């Protein structure tokens, strides 16, 4: 999985990203609008349930929840599509010497484009709810980059596992639900009992999420220490993922 090989196949990666997006949108009649609508509708549901029924003490809950959801959808969908990407392209990677990393890479990049599209309604909601538009929003590209690195790393680690054991896909689906509840995606940190708060605090996903949500919801660039932790976690994730993928890459064609 050398970097050179990936560069050589860059146009293939681009092609796979576009194909991924086309397939995703061809099937629905309202196409790209769905990417923007889906998180908005989820946000409405969450607002109804948590801001009005459970009454979370949090200002402008809609923005808080939507920012969390955008990150979470990007992460969880990219993980699942990365895991499926090797089996889905089995016909290619057992017949052609394509560097296998192009498959998880292109699914994460397609997820990134979806995230960008889903940012559009977020800005609409920011404006509609009168949330202050601070210069900190300019920090978002950095935050998205960190989130993408982390997601790609996790995808690289899980994709070969999913090729070896198909059960992993189901298992990770369950674990993702658990992880979502352990990450303050739609609830504020302070509703968690003091005794359990460490579990959420040391959750790496929380660090990545907060670096993403700080500039949107709190209108501030994340503190340097938080940012350093998130960047560190992402780099470690990519290093572990790349190592695992490289180690197992030669065996993938025997299993898919």
């Amino acid at each position, binding site marked *: 999985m050398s970097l050179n090989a990936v560069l050589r196949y860059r146009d293939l990666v681009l092609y796979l990203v576009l194909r991924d997006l086309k397939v995703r949108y061809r099937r629905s009649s309202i196409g790209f609008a769905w990417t923007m609508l889906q998180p908005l509708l989820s946000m409405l549901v969450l607002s109804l349930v948590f801001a009005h029924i459970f009454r979370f003490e949090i200002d402008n809950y809609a923005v808080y929840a939507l920012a969390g959801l955008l990150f979470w959808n990007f992460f969880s969908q990219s993980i699942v599509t990365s895991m499926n990407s090797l089996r889905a392209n089995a016909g290619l990677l057992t017949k052609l010497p394509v560097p296998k990393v192009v498959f998880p890479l292109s699914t994460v990049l397609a997820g990134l484009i979806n995230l960008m599209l889903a940012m559009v309604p977020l800005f609409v909601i920011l404006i509609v709810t009168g949330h202050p538009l601070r210069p900190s929003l300019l920090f978002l590209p950095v935050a998205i980059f960190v989130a993408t690195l982390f997601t790609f790393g996790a995808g690289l680690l899980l994709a070969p596992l999913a090729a070896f054991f198909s059960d992993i896909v189901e298992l990770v689906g369950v674990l993702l639900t658990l992880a979502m509840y352990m990450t303050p995606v739609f609830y504020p940190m302070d509703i968690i009992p003091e005794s359990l708060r460490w579990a959420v605090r040391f959750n790496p996903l929380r660090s990545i999420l907060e670096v993403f949500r700080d500039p949107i919801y709190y209108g501030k660039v994340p503190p340097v220490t938080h940012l350093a932790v998130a960047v560190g976690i992402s780099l470690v994730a990519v290093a572990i993922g790349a190592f695992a993928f490289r180690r197992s890459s030669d065996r993938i064609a*025997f299993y898919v």
Partner: protein
Amino acid sequence: MSERRGGGGRRTVVRLEGVALCYRLAKQRHVSIKEFAIHWMKRALIYEKLWALRGVDLHVLAGERLGIIGRNGAGKSSLLKVVSGVLKPTEGRVETRGHLAPILELGTGFDYELTGLENIYLNALLLGRTRREIDERVADVVAFSELGDFIHSPIRNYSSGMIARLGFSIATAWVPDVLILDEVLAVGDAHFIAKSRQRLAELRAAGTALLLVSHDLDSVRETCDRCVWIDGGRVAAEGPTDEVVERYRAATAAEDAPPAAAAGR
């Protein structure tokens, strides 16, 4: 990889040393985690191994045309997969030099819902070409394939001969260092076979090495300078094509005794 060896100081483009390839049998794949955990504890029992290749040494020089013959299941396709880098050998070393263009199966890397033209792009991208390189050659590919207006219709409407033509036209649009063909020309018509022979001759002049798997012994004879007979995953014979083909014919005829002329199956 060393530059030496062979007539006229031509360089080695494919070198296999002591290559062995082992498949674990089908029941071992797609295991559930539970099965895996159980099997893992008594590992020795369940790994039923199938050695598709054993102790294979092979050198191919630039411009050489190597035929690979043998019965079904002898390991010919496994050999091509190892050479093209799709499967990593269990033992031994594989070194290749330069750009490989493998067609291991009819229609590999094609999307049957896309048009012929779109598939030229997809297939060439999968062979490691960039969009720009493809833009430069796409007209040549279309012309060589002689698909005419069919190039704009989805290839699910194509005959297997048309798909073979398109695949061959794409793989040979650039001069690869190693061209690997697994029985893909057999479905072409006489006209296209003659035309592809012509192109193979041009590629040879440009230094492309050809690895050709075929059951059509006459076509191997006409195309290849050298031949390898694979039997039971090992090299049974190697040398000038006529000699090896004769030995192979004699061996199969002897085995298939009474109904003799079961040529090469």
